[in-house]
């Protein structure tokens, strides 16, 4: 290739780049966020024919709950298919809406806010009462478990003591930059930086750390990379005393009870099984389940089997 053709090649590359992107985008007309008709048999009792597709978030603890649901349903004679670790709410709820996933364990408050950002409901009861109307047609929510796993803002015990900060309301008096770390989507959530500003008048910098409040987030709090991190309240490490979970007097964060969301046509069939599970699932139990995963390094299937057996459900 001579020098001159090399140069032409560069120009062609540039021109092609624009063309290709245009062409790709042109093919993708229509709203990608709109539920797609995937040709699945949703809406006409898909349950009766195929297996129940159970999804989970890309979060280890959610996968454990999904696995418990899956094994409990299998024990009661249902055929299930696991589609775990799908991603975050925006992704798996779209999959629920288009019928490609039919059951997923959810957290009540965040789910409610996802469909109704302006909701006034805060308590377990109010959220549970508001949810059925908030979710799209074709989806049903079952009764919540006692177990909660909520977003929470955590600082080091040392930081809390030094600055006399034990509540999100105390942050307004703090001079200095406040940096919050959490999953990327938190930055746009009503309980993320926008909520901190609205409810507490606190403006924060945001660092996306993609481990769902895992070891990287905790490390970042400890070493001062971030001032506070979003850790879920059923995280066993919160009991170690390293962190102080900031109180939320304005109830920016809603009650987050574990709540199954299910395709409406399946709801009746799976309710007895899932109600039996949820009746036993307390926050303490959930923390213990998470500890089995994080500390004892067991996989979700083993943890689920052990828990169901211990509770006489298997």
């Amino acid at each position, binding site marked *: 290739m001579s020098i001159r053709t090399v140069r032409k090649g560069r120009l062609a590359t540039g021109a092609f780049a624009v063309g290709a992107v245009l062409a790709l985008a042109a093919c993708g007309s229509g709203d990608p966020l709109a539920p797609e008709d995937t040709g699945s048999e949703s809406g006409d009792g898909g349950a009766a024919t195929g297996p129940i597709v159970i999804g989970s978030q890309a979060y280890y603890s959610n996968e454990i709950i999904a696995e418990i649901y899956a094994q409990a349903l299998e024990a009661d004679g249902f055929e299930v298919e696991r589609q775990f670790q799908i991603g975050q709410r925006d992704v798996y709820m779209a999959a629920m809406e288009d019928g490609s996933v039919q059951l997923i364990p959810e957290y009540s408050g965040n789910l409610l806010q996802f469909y109704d950002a302006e909701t006034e409901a805060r308590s377990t009861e109010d959220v549970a009462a508001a949810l059925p109307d908030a979710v799209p047609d074709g989806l049903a929510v079952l009764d919540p478990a006692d177990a909660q796993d909520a977003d929470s803002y955590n600082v080091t015990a040392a930081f809390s003591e030094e600055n006399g900060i034990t509540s999100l309301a105390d942050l307004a008096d703090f001079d200095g930059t406040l940096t919050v770390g959490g999953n990327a989507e938190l930055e746009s959530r009503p309980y993320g930086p926008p909520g901190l500003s609205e409810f507490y008048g606190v403006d924060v910098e945001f660092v996306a*750390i993609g481990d769902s409040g895992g070891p990287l987030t905790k490390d970042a709090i400890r070493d001062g990379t971030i001032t506070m991190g979003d850790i879920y309240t059923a995280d066993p490490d919160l009991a170690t005393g390293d962190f102080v979970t900031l109180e939320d007097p304005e109830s920016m964060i809603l009650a987050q009870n574990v709540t199954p969301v299910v395709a409406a046509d399946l709801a009746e069939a799976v309710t007895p099984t899932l109600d039996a599970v949820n009746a036993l699932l307390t926050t303490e139990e959930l923390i213990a389940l998470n500890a089995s995963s994080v500390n004892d390094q067991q996989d979700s299937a083993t943890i689920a089997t052990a828990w169901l057996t211990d509770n006489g459900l298997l």
Partner: protein
Amino acid sequence: MNLFLDALAWLTDPERVTGPNPLAERIGEHLWYTVLALVVSALIAVPLGYLIGHTGKGRQLAVLGSGAARALPSLGLLTIFTLIVGVGNAQVAAIAVFVILGVPSILAGAYAGVEAVDRSVVDAARAMGMTETQILFRVEAPLGLPLLLGGLRSAALQIIATAVLAAYVGLGGLGIYIQRGISLRTYDEMLGGAILIVLLALIVDALFAIAERVARRAIGSAPSRGRPRSERPEPLSTDRQSTLEEIR
């Protein structure tokens, strides 16, 4: 409704300057990781490549090492390194991953450049009384510069594309838009971020293309460096041309 128009609207929204995740900052981070990784890769790979090219030893080892480096999944390395060194040093972890990615191409460019120099030129230099070090730095290295630049170019492109993963360990960069786009299903943001990364790659690619051209012209116009092109045995010279393309 069109994905591309949405992405353009996203890219040109004033929010990209004033809002969270300003473009300039994220582009800066992305470039910084790329440049840093490229420099570290070059510091490792260029001396090693020159050594292999000059002595002609260790080529099989280089191929084997490159294959092994390529088999290592970047996402796995990034997560394990970050977990080990701690998130405060995530940048070290990320740079290490990108260096593993960049070294093979630069190594190949460095050694191929030296190796492709006409042996009769090297022999002539030796006959003139040059030491081996002089031959390497005054003859082989300058003549091999275009191929080395080709290797750097290939490494830079791979690093730019892979630096997307840095967002997952809190390092930002342009990957943040793709990560957010995936979590929030915001296709405008995702495509906008992807377009920026492709553009960045094309610009860097073009800069290296220019540098390669300048380097080749400099070699061609230096009469004292070896024999004129036309006198070189034909197969070798075409081989050199094609080598140049292969490196890219």
